[in-house]
């Protein structure tokens, strides 16, 4: 089934054209990476899918439905770039993960013991057991990011959407992180859409890549995005890309 169908998506915010004529379709269960320079409209693109920005309804269909229907059904798990949270916000890691279930509970109903157990299970799944009672606001960027993923996954979403999740994580941590995501994709049959500024690292883990800078420059297999012509159009001239993948791209290019 098609997870995401985007037709001629254009978004203008405060008179500025952010996205223009984007067409893209993604099969269920795929891992899509979205790359592009700063200010290229990547976050706006995610928010249009999530229904946080409302383009014309026919432009975005998720699992054959409108974004609004998907929000009601809890289709998405979302990990934003920044939480802008006060470090003294009174919530422990377990509280934050449990929040992921609030939308399903309804008014006047409190999380049950079972809900809390489920939250603990997901904290274990992301490799953070023992941190349940740690104040969320005082955690490092990487730890918060992992807890956020547990929060996004605990409600069993069909599509996981992440905005620059590796910000604040060191390079070694990043590889672990992408590995973890890859594992969730297989285990839960998740569709993952992830924005990253790090094109090199992403290509090794995703199934498809989309290069975005107001318009969609490329959408297809990850290695295709490393084509010099694509990169030059996306980022401008004089860009040298370091790639962390099994394939030595420089060698490939030299061989040609």
């Amino acid at each position, binding site marked *: 089934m098609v997870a995401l169908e985007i037709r001629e998506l254009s978004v203008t915010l405060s008179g500025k054209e952010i996205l223009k004529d984007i067409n893209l379709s993604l099969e269920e269960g795929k891992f899509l990476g979205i790359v592009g320079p700063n200010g290229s409209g990547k976050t706006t693109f995610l928010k249009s899918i*999530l229904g946080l920005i409302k383009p014309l309804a026919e432009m975005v269909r998720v699992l054959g439905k409108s974004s609004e229907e998907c929000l009601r059904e809890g289709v*998405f798990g979302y990990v934003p770039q920044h939480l802008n949270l006060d470090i003294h916000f009174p919530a422990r890691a377990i509280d934050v993960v449990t929040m992921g279930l609030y939308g399903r509970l309804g008014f006047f109903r409190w999380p049950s013991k079972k809900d809390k157990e489920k939250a603990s299970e997901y904290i274990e799944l992301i490799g953070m057991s023992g941190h349940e009672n740690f104040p969320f606001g005082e955690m490092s960027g990487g730890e918060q990011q992992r807890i956020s993923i547990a*929060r996004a996954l605990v409600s069993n979403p069909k599509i996981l959407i992440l905005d620059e999740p590796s910000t604040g994580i060191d390079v070694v941590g990043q590889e672990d992180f992408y590995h973890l995501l890859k594992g969730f994709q297989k285990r839960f049959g998740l569709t993952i859409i992830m924005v990253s500024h790090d094109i090199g690292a992403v290509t090794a883990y995703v199934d498809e890549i989309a290069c975005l800078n107001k318009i969609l420059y490329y959408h297809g297999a990850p290695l295709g995005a490393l084509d010099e012509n694509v990169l030059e159009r996306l980022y401008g001239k004089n860009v040298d890309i370091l790639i962390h993948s099994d394939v030595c791209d420089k060698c490939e290019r030299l061989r040609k």
Partner: protein
Amino acid sequence: MEILSYGFMQRAVVTGIAISMLAGVISVFVVLRRVSFVGSGISHAAFGGVAIGFLAGVNPVITAMIYSILVAFGIEKISSKGRVAEDTAIGVFFSSSMALGIVLISLSKNYNVDLFGYLFGSILAISESEMWLTIAATVVILAVIMMIMKELLFTTFNEELAIVSGIPTRLIKSLFLLSMAVAIVISIKVVGIILVSALLVIPGAVAQLLSRSFYPMMLMSCAVALFSTIAGLYLSYQFDLSPGGTIVLIITALFFAAFLRARK
């Protein structure tokens, strides 16, 4: 205990307990949502509503409540358009409502009105019907907040995440704003327009300094409000002080004690 034999003291204690619970719960969200200045704006705007009541010969609490709710949503509406910052919108409503109040009161030529009571509180002069009105409003507001508590917490944590989880954040925010406006007007009876923001802000601030998760923070906040109100009433009776002022000074002392403790 002999002070409780007076009817006015019994009414003051009962009203004080109700308002402490209200202030304790609301102030947690006032602090976490960083809307203490909104609260201050609404309480001062209530002065305009009180004056309308005096002039029209209606119970000023009723007119103040309606007026404050309108101002609360007015501030929200104007600042949400993005052209005017929230603190600017508050500044506009704050002073203009007080100006309206002054003009209306000078117009009424009724200098017998208990202005001082509204500005600085008159908890010892509360009538039985006012006490019941306070209790009823407290029960309704606490029920509303209980209903939306976890949704409001999530919306405060991060609004976009709450939306993605299917929470109707607009409704939640409006219900909170409404509850806050009503709570402020009700609390004016105890500490007055000028001091009410202390009651709506400081219990939550003390609790945040001393707790690391939400429910303990809520309990602590209610305890701080309750202790200050009761202790304030007692001390003001013993030493013949202004009850509203004494309550606020006690809460403030607790704040500094908590601040020093939390710094360690």
